């Protein structure tokens, strides 16, 4: 069921905005979960800043600085609207998801987490939503608890409930797994966490680019995502926080822009969000992110989701035809955007290397999720990910490239059994 104004993607028209696809044959770019391509309107918006109103923001008295400030703040409003944040000032610009989560871990974490407190994570977290909490736990004496996954690659919700107790101060969870593609039941997670008085940090790096995320409906306390996975530039990310939390939190980095008054020994701090945006920010990149929000909302987030679901379903179907392939994660309808797999006896680096020879870009490695690799009992996986500019033809070329990889790598029997698929525990 689609909403009334649903309009399917015009993929051919969308691809016109990405000069990188202009070659023949076009690049089959299946690595958007790592970083998406940037459309021409986003690049043009950043060029316009550099060419016509390049200046620092906030304190300039002259016209182009006022223009830069207005564009930077306009981007904040666009991001706020995208995730339905009540106020634009609840949007803090960071470098990326990683910096946004570190901001929460240092600022909120150091003020609110102490010895004996528990932080609940899942085994499917990206290192960016794991290592900051390890570092916080080491500083404070708090304990990390990990929610396991089911054999299907879904979050074990019963286990999550078991881990929650009055000592749980924080739940840090990814909305969509960057390896399995699993869409977690975020609403139920947040409701259950709040029932024991815990705050919730959401890693939305893989969800905001793909479907509508509504922070008011979810009632999450913090939510982080990156510009570069949603058609924006690198170097710009977002932290959303509930206003009372952001207001109570101590600053993260000290410096210019984040102060109200500075004396020799003490300072008072600016209001949110300036309090968390010390130093000259990524101005062009923030403006570019605003245009990326325009780009994906004009395409339609619902249409993007429908399109990538179609690609994901087709990829599941085609890849399952390949002998010796293992697909990770749940069924396509429980996933968003990514498909991880291994082909028996071929190392993911070799899969990626051979596909590259055929103009297909995928990722092979641990995807910054080493605990999950261990859980899946693999060294690494190959991963194809899909976005609004991908086509069924891209999936066909992935399929064809995998067949070629098999022809090349499995010609003769090897004297040494490959361990590409084998983990330490097997």
């Amino acid at each position: 069921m689609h909403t009334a104004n649903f309009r399917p993607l015009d993929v051919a028209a969308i691809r016109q905005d990405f000069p990188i696809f202009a070659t023949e044959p076009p690049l089959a770019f299946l690595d958007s979960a790592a970083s998406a391509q940037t459309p021409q309107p986003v690049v043009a918006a950043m060029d316009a800043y550099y060419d016509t109103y390049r200046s620092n923001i906030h304190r300039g008295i002259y016209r182009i600085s006022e223009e830069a400030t207005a564009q930077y703040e306009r981007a904040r409003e666009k991001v706020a609207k995208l995730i339905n944040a009540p106020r634009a000032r609840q949007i803090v610009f960071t470098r990326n998801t990683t910096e946004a989560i570190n901001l929460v871990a240092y600022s909120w974490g150091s003020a609110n987490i102490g010895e004996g407190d528990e932080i609940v994570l899942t085994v499917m977290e990206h290192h960016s939503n794991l290592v900051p909490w390890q570092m916080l736990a080491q500083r404070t004496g708090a304990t990390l608890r990990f929610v396991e996954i089911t054999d299907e690659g879904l979050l074990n919700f019963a286990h999550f409930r078991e881990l929650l107790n009055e000592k749980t101060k924080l739940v840090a969870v990814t909305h969509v797994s960057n390896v399995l593609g699993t869409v977690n039941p975020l609403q139920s997670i947040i409701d259950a966490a709040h029932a024991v008085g815990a705050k919730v940090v959401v890693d939305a790096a893989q969800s905001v680019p793909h479907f509508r995320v509504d922070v008011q409906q979810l009632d999450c306390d913090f939510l982080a995502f990156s510009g570069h996975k949603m058609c924006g530039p690198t170097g710009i990310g977002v932290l959303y926080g509930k206003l009372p939390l952001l207001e109570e939190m101590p600053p993260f980095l000290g410096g210019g822009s984040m102060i109200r008054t500075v004396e020799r020994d003490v300072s008072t701090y600016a209001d949110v969000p300036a309090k968390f945006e010390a130093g000259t920010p990524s101005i062009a990149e923030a403006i570019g992110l605003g245009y990326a929000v325009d780009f994906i909302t004009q395409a339609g987030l619902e249409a993007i989701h429908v399109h990538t679901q179609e690609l994901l379903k087709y990829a599941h179907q085609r890849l399952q035809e390949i002998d010796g392939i293992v697909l990770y994660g749940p069924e396509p309808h429980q996933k968003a955007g990514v498909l991880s797999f291994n082909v028996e006896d071929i190392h993911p680096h070799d899969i990626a290397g051979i596909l590259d020879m055929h103009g297909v870009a995928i990722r092979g490695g641990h995807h910054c999720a080493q605990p999950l690799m261990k859980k899946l009992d693999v060294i690494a996986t190959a991963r194809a990910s899909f976005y609004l500019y991908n086509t069924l033809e891209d999936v066909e070329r992935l399929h064809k490239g995998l067949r070629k990889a098999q022809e090349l790598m499995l010609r003769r029997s090897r004297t040494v059994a490959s361990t590409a698929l084998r983990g330490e525990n097997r």
Partner: protein
Amino acid sequence: MNIYQEELLDHYENPSNYGTLPNPDISHEEDNPLCGDRIRIDLGVEDGIIKKVRFSGHGCTISLAAASMLTEEIAGKSLAEVKQLSRDDILEMIGIPLGPVRVKCALLPLKVLKAGAYGITAWPGEEDA
């Protein structure tokens, strides 16, 4: 020229010196943090000469072929001579251009060898960095 040449694939499919030594004089194992590939090298050394060498572990074509070629190269040589092997020597053995990620795959066996035999922990080519 691509990285899936016959010679490399032959080393990958039928590597030389694959296995472990029962009582190695030197044994060292490391992984590549980029991809989790893991290589172990065992050496049997007499009077400063590498008499026996075996490698084991798991990895991609490049890391396993590089390990196979490296063990062929060092068998019978002195530890002093082997210490001189450089990043460029390995890349010459591989014989085809590699991107920065795959270069690490190629250099992992030499890194393991140098850490085990000489306590050199830096990546080959980055010793002075």
